[in-house]
């Protein structure tokens, strides 16, 4: 079936297809993933902590602070937009300053600019590097093989994916065997096989071992450096950083957990985060609440098939209690585009009477002025349906099946 059938994001799908698999990958997490993507400077600070060489740099979130940072690191320096999206340079988010006037004008231009939907709130000001060579390296958890994979190429830059296809020998890929240590010898062999310049080879090998340390110590499931440079005085330095931290391991990284709280982009998403809900805004007009990520995604699909546009993804999770339902309804209704809401609940661990209590409580505590279509099935559904019937809420529509509920909510939302 054509992707255009699914109106909520067909544009996105087309864009991804049109860009030679960039983004179309195992590396793309589905929208419910809560893993933490670090900004470049946050990754570089972790690099520095573990002895991975990075250029001298300073953080700034105002123009005066950026100028001061530039004065400290010295000229020429580079002012780099800190956003969680690639190709910042092409969008004008990376600029070289040769004096404080240039630093000021670049900081003014970059702070507050939009890069593909992301507003720049922070910059990293870094001493400019003289570049002799640009390499590519990454360490990623290969889910299929259940092993860490180290990749290294002497051809760094934007076209590394294309090169991986057209000239696979240019990209060395080596799995780290789970029972074995990642030794300096193994790293040196990767460096030699990638035909890294001889005088930089040992430095690169040393860096690979340290990156592996960073991955394990910081619970990073992806670390990518592109480019990894050799400076004109033949030092190997990480000029960029992309890093993803495993959400489940954040409890053992207090500093990183704090970063998570600042990473939301959207007011509804921020609100959901504060309430501990998994919420993603999708831009349509039908609010969706399901229990379990799979059922919730399936609900989006069925609503789209019925001709509707989902406003959001909200997974109430397993065993949601009344409080969580009130919080969820607050988040969903704070999106002004929402003109109807679908509750699709199949209770396993979740009890439908708790869901019903949550809906009733929400109707008392918040101003619910949009129609609600509710489908409750599974554990304690009879009790839940009875509670809802007794409450006699205005504009509440009960449906028996998932498909029926999807059709009904689409009808109401468009009517």
């Amino acid at each position, binding site marked *: 079936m054509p*992707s255009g059938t*699914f109106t*909520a*994001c067909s544009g996105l*799908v087309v864009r*991804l*297809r049109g860009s030679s*698999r*960039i*983004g*179309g*990958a*195992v*590396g*793309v*997490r*589905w*929208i419910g*993933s809560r893993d933490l*993507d670090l900004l470049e400077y946050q990754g570089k600070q972790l690099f520095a902590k573990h002895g991975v060489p990075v250029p001298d740099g300073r953080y700034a979130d105002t123009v005066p602070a950026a100028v001061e940072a530039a004065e400290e690191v010295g000229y020429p320096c580079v002012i780099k937009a800190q956003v*969680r999206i*690639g190709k910042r340079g092409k969008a004008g988010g990376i600029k070289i300053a040769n004096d404080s006037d240039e630093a000021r004008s670049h900081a003014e231009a970059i702070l507050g600019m939009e890069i593909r939907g992301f507003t720049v709130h922070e910059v990293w000001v870094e001493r400019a590097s003289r570049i002799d060579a640009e390499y*590519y390296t990454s360490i*990623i*958890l290969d*889910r*299929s093989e*259940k*092993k860490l994979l180290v990749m290294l190429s002497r051809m760094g830059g934007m076209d*590394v*994916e294309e090169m*991986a296809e057209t000239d696979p020998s240019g*990209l060395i890929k080596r799995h780290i065997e789970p029972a074995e240590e990642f030794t300096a010898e193994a790293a040196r062999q990767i460096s030699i096989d990638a035909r890294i310049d001889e005088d930089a080879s040992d430095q690169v090998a040393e860096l690979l071992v340290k990156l592996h340390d960073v991955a*394990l110590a910081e619970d990073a*499931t*992806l670390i990518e450096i592109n480019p990894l440079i050799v400076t004109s005085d033949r030092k190997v330095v990480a000029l960029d950083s992309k890093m993803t931290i*495993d959400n*489940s*391991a954040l*409890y053992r990284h207090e500093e990183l957990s704090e970063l998570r709280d600042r990473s939301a982009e959207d007011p509804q998403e921020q609100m959901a985060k504060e309430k501990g809900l998994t919420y993603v805004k*999708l831009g349509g007009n039908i609010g969706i609440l*399901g229990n*379990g*990520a*799979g*059922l919730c*995604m*399936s609900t*989006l*699909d069925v609503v789209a*098939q019925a001709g509707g546009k*989902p406003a959001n993804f909200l997974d109430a999770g*397993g065993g949601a209690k009344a409080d969580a339902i009130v919080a969820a309804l607050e988040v969903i209704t704070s999106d002004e585009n929402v003109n109807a809401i679908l509750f699709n609940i*199949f209770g*396993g661990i*979740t009890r439908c009477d708790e869901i019903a209590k949550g809906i009733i409580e929400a109707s008392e505590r918040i101003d619910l002025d949009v129609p609600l279509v509710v489908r409750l*099935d*599974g*554990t304690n559904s009879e009790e839940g349906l009875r509670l809802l019937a007794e409450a006699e809420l205005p504009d509440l529509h009960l449906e028996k099946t*998932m498909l029926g509920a999807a059709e009904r909510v689409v009808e109401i939302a468009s009517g």
Partner: protein
Amino acid sequence: MAIVVNEETKLVISGLTGREGTFHGLRNRSYGTDVVAGVTPGKGGQDVEGIPVYDKVAEAIAERDANTSMIFVPARFAAAAITEAIDAGVHTVIAITEGIPVYDMLAVYWKARDAGVRLIGPNCPGVLSPGKSNVGIIPAHFFDPGAIGVVSKSGTLTYQIGNELKQAGTGNSSIVGIGGDPIVGSDFIDVLALFEEDDETELIVMVGEIGGDAEERAADFIAEHVSKPVVAYIAGFTAPPGKQMGHAGAIISGSSGTAEAKKEALEARGVRVGRSPTESAQLAVEAMRAIA
């Protein structure tokens, strides 16, 4: 027969004395599962409604012949609990716990593999073989005994489809929730292989979702190794992919990980893929009629 759990299952539950562990452990027992022991360090000698509690899994095996372990302990202790169960000598570990750090699971995955122990999960609803044994949190009353094997990444979606299969008068040999974490003990392929070997299973329903390439690899496996008919459902056609971080993910996979790509991969190998849980259940029921 059925797979993973059956009449022979003697279950030891790590974390039985916790709130969730007690609730689901007792539910499993009242379904008919032979729950022989619980394990909570420091609480050996106690019991939970007649189920004896030990300090160690090894004691539960020595005293009560436990052969299968269910893990219900909090995430930060779960990897150690799985490791303990493997070392103690059970043949199967079913890990329900959600939120285990991925590198902890990586070590546990290889440990289980090297020891020849079947690991299901983590972050999964468990395994139900209707009429025989239920290990985990799957609400058993939505499923009847029958000939359809179900393997799924998602809990609630499985209940949705299972319930529709039941209403259509069909039933299940086993329902296996493999979990949706980056590292799971058993993948679609491992479970498909078990269903292929299982005498009671005549048809397999596979429930996947966006992300990773487990469904695509399952499609290849089905083409080569599975003679029984397979019907699939994939969730997430409308879900926009997350932001791509860098190039590494794209380089290591030949697949886009989208629902559409998974559907295409499966259909190219003769697997029928429904557009909704309801349609997938209908396809499964039709296919069963064709077999009969």
